[in-house]
């Protein structure tokens, strides 16, 4: 693959001299009689295109195909020549489209038949073309600046396609000699300039076009080397459709194109909407899409046809009705842009519109026998249609060991859904290219990497390795803390999350700790909470570098988290006063809830142990009437301490064990009813708020936390 081959630069030189105004002598009937018209009307005389019109529309067709298949990097410079030269566009990528050229051509208009033929010559245009080929394109410039010291590797080759009406073979030779001379001259000039490049090789394609019915004065000549820098070929073609065919063949040769005919396309008939006939559509695309056929010598399979005396070949592929869906990932070895040969015909536009609407079509190799082989797929991406080459041979990767047989394959509790969530959050999106667009000056892709890094700083891969990521309550914090920058609101949300966890701990809510691989009951509740807090702290700590607000979240976690009892004791005194101010009211309530908000088993035990507990509890309250934590801790500690004596009293029945287990499991699945939580002996008073509103308004006024 060479980027700077002949096809990088094409200079079109079209003759605009008076004789090009001559008719091509092929008449086009444009006043077609339609059935329902009155009989007496005489149709208007047919029109006939001039040589100029033929040359222009064929060259535009050449450009149309070229731009469809190579929207970038294959450039055209369109030059018109009469008594002087007119350059219609530049090598710039923005100037490379047919609309621009059409507009410029309209400004030039048809040749003036009354102009003095002596002053007019195609030579002006050819000289301009050589000069133009010396100009550096933006791609050449870019490659040269990138390579620096090896910039000479960037070649400057080009092709001149000249459409003219020559007088004789000698005239043609004169034109060729002139091009050689101009190249030598321009190369000398270019050698001393940074803005110009010397032409290493140039290909001149001279097309002599003449009206139908005239004898040609110029003979065809295959490619021949005129000088080391110039090779030249001459084509002598009648104007009109002959010229169109010639240029179609040339565009294929010049840009390595090949033709595929899609056959058996079912299409609704205009007249009979419920029937459909089968149509064929011919497409052009890069030759590479046929490589498999070319190499295997299958280029002429059963369906292929050869037209125009063997000059043009097309491979036939059959439309395959079972369509593919877009979420399937095909093994595709190449995708090549297409251009329909007959872009405006009804079959072509039906096919292209079908594809542009987002549907894909699989194409099948026609075979006389054997199973069908799907070898290609037509699909559009963003308004461009591509011919995808699908791999149809045996894969060398067949029958690989399944991923479940390899490393980590036996592990069953991966956080698949959570990672899926992470993937969704780390989906990519295109950003417009502008130096200012990158936040903090990084290219978008680097920012994407940085985000992935942040999102994975603390990311246990399996469910049993984590508590916090199994808790709905942690989600708001976990989602926010990975952000690059936090807002005040974010910090508030994080803090709320932490307080909520404190609350849960106080209420002794069960934690979704995985019991996979552990025998028996697993760690005790307070140990679970400790582990949870450790994990949360670890998560937040990895983001402390994110700024002050991240640090504040960490501070909040450290301040609120529960600690091992000894540490707790030490801290307690320091924090007492603070707590007193903050939560003067809730305390009593919480302690009330505390007693009931226990697992049933514990409640049972609790009931049994109530007598024992009570003094302890009162003692604690005495010691620290306002602090919630000790309340939380102490009763449970005493509870656990009291277990051995309980066990000594007598074993629990199997039924109790089982019910406890089931209840525990169930309680994890739903939030407990408020009524049940607040119940006394499984009874709770309904419509308490009515009572509150009616009789206890006075007390409520004093509350701060309502």
């Amino acid at each position, binding site marked *: 693959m060479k980027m700077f081959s002949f096809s990088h630069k094409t200079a079109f030189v079209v003759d605009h001299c008076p004789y090009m105004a001559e008719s091509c002598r092929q008449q086009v009937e444009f006043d077609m009689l339609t059935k329902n018209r009155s009989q007496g009307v005489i149709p208007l005389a047919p029109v006939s295109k001039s040589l100029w019109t033929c040359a222009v529309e064929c060259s535009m067709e050449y450009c149309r195909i070229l731009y469809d298949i190579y929207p970038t990097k294959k450039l055209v410079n369109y030059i018109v020549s009469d008594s002087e030269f007119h350059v219609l566009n530049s090598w710039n990528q923005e100037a490379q489209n047919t609309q621009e050229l059409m507009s410029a*051509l309209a400004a030039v208009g048809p040749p003036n038949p009354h102009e003095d033929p002596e002053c007019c010559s195609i030579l002006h245009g050819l000289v301009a073309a050589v000069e133009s080929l010396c100009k550096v394109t933006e791609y050449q410039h870019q490659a040269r600046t990138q390579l620096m010291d090896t910039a000479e590797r960037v070649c400057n080759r080009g092709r001149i396609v000249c459409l003219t009406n020559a007088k004789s073979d000698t005239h043609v030779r004169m034109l060729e000699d002139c091009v050689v001379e101009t190249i030598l001259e321009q190369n000398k000039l270019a050698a001393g300039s940074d803005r110009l490049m010397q032409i290493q090789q140039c290909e001149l394609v001279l097309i002599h076009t003449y009206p139908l019915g005239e004898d040609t004065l110029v003979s065809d000549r295959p490619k021949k080397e005129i000088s080391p820098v110039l090779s030249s070929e001459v084509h002598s073609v009648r104007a009109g459709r002959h010229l169109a065919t010639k240029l179609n063949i040339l565009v294929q040769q010049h840009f390595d194109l090949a033709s595929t005919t899609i056959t058996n396309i079912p299409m609704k008939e205009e007249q009979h909407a419920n029937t459909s006939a089968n149509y064929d559509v011919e497409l052009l695309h890069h030759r590479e899409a046929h490589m498999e056929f070319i190499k295997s010598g299958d280029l002429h399979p059963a369906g292929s046809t050869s037209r125009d005396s063997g000059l043009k070949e097309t491979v036939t592929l059959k439309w395959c009705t079972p369509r593919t869906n877009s979420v399937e990932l095909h093994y595709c070895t190449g995708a090549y842009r297409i251009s329909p040969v007959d872009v405006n015909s009804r079959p072509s536009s039906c096919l292209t519109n079908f594809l542009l609407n987002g549907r894909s079509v699989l194409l099948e190799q026609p075979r006389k026998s054997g199973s069908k082989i799907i070898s290609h797929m037509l699909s559009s991406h963003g308004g461009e249609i591509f011919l995808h080459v699908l791999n149809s041979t045996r894969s*060398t990767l067949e029958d690989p060991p399944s991923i479940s047989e390899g490393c980590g394959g036996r592990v069953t509790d991966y956080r698949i859904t959570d990672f899926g969530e992470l993937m969704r959050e780390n989906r*990519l999106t*295109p950003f417009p290219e502008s130096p200012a667009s990158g936040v903090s000056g990084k290219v978008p892709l680097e920012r994407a990497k940085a985000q992935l890094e942040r999102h994975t700083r603390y990311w246990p891969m399996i469910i049993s390795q984590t508590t916090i990521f199994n808790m709905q309550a942690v989600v708001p914090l976990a989602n926010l803390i990975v952000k690059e920058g936090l807002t005040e609101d974010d910090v508030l949300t994080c803090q709320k999350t932490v307080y909520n966890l404190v609350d849960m701990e106080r209420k002794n809510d069960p934690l979704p700790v995985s019991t996979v691989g552990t025998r028996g009951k697993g760690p005790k509740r307070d140990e679970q909470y400790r582990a949870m807090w450790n994990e949360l702290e670890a998560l937040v700590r990895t983001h402390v570098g994110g700024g002050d607000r991240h640090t504040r979240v960490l501070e909040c976690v450290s301040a609120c988290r529960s600690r091992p009892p000894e540490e707790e004791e030490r801290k307690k005194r320091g924090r007492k006063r603070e707590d007193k101010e903050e939560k003067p009211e809730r305390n009593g309530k919480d302690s009330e809830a505390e007693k009931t908000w226990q697992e049933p088993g514990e409640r049972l035990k609790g009931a049994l142990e109530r007598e024992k507990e009570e003094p302890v509890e009162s003692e604690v309250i005495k010691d620290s009437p306002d602090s919630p934590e000790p309340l939380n801790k102490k009763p449970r500690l005493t509870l656990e301490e009291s277990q051995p004596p309980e066990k000594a009293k007598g074993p629990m029945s199997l039924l109790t064990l089982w019910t406890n287990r089931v209840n525990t499991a169930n309680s994890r699945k739903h939030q407990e009813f408020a009524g049940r939580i607040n119940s006394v002996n499984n009874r709770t008073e309904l419509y308490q708020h009515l009572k509150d509103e009616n009789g206890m308004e006075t007390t409520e006024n004093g509350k701060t936390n309502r």
Partner: protein
Amino acid sequence: MPTVVLMDASLSMTRPVALEGSEEFQRKNLAIHGLTMLFEHMATNYRLEFTALVAFSSLWEVMVPFTRDYNTLQEALSNLEDYDKTCLESALQGVSNIVQQEWGSACPCQVVLVTDGSLGIGRGSLRHSLATMKQRGDDKKFPLPFPFPAKLYIMCIANAEELQSSDTLDNLEQLLILSAGGGQIFTMEGQLCLKSVQSMFGKLIDQAYTPFHAVLRCGNLSSDVQVFPRPEPVVIDEEVEPTPMTILTDLEIVGFIEIGDISSPPVLSRHLVLPIAVNKEVDEVGAGTAEDAEEESSTNQMAGKSPNFCVLLHGSLKVEGMVALVQLGPEWYGMLYSQADSKKKSNLMMSLFEPGPEPLPWLGKMSQLGPTSDAKENPYGEDDTKSPFPLQPKNKRSYAQNVTVWIKPSGLQTDVQKILRNARKLPEKTQTFYKELNRLRKAALAFGFWELLKGVAELLERECTLLPDSAHPDAAFQLSHAAQQLKLASTGDSQYAAFEHNITPMVTDFSGGDRDRM
């Protein structure tokens, strides 16, 4: 990348090797010893490679078709018989056939030719083949270069001194150049013995059969992986950038994209990404002892139970229907996805895109892809129903923009008919009438086809005279207005023939209501 071992089974391979003391060896025994070593290496470290064994003399025969069963290959090697003279050309033709039959012509292959370096004499000898190469017709072309990309490794069971006495090395080098896909000629150093054949095959293994190990990263999550088959270096443009690019051993995930958005992209090659245990030592030569194997299986078991990022990634990619974009080098990218085979076995697969900043036009420049959180509003929509892909190109393609092509008369006739059809439905179709009229006008001006403008003007004038009595009075006004405008344009007068100018409907008393619509 399948391997074909092309084993010389000619009589000259039975030549004994002079060895002091110990038992007598034939060159064939040395060759078999070397190949055994290669097969053992592959069985342990390159298990997924398909290998075929072809023996040749004046004829060739597939001893073992492509397989991953290295025991079968080994067995076939020990049952190898001796035949007549060496005829390389037909054997190479055979290799070409069997590879194409099995894998088509796009799959890269490695051919390991094992020979003693006596390449025959007279007709059928390599020297003869090379000498007559250029004088043949298309039907009898020399099999090199192969139609598929191929690396040719030539293992000479002979030392360099021995080969230099004839033109063998020159011929083999010519063969290598012809094959054009790279490769190397290996010769034995010093005395012909088991040790030197081992060292020669050791070099081949180092060069062509060392597994490619890499680290797959996604932020702070990572996994050690083997990428199979080995990704081969790629040359982008032999003129501007002639140095081959190789992929990094640090594969970094840059983000994720829906399968529908990446939509069957073209890829250079596909590779399995197999997680490997971190501390496993890769033994260098051949299979380990039974003890090693036991140890290995136990470490494998351990590895199976400890969580691995690849498995997690694979699972989520599969469930979510997404691919991970991975950076393979500076301006080189690929994608990771879950691939299930016909037996419902699933695997993590990596496909390499063409190197370059913009391998897929519908994604745009890779470096311009960024996190959605940087966008002002979520490009996937709040309810995940939108997508920022595919990217629209700056200019529409011809088939998407209603271009005018009159190369075939039918193209011109259709366009004129469209105008006429709308002309007969004036004033209802005023807008479409002028749209079609302007389209024709623009094309006629660009093509310098003024005669057509005059013709259509006449056509419209005639249409005006044929209007039935029941016609809306506005129709006549619009038709004669349009005809007049076309006539003016056909004069080439810059005031009326400007390309950008559009003929607008005539404002009449009747068309007052239409004015708002214009």
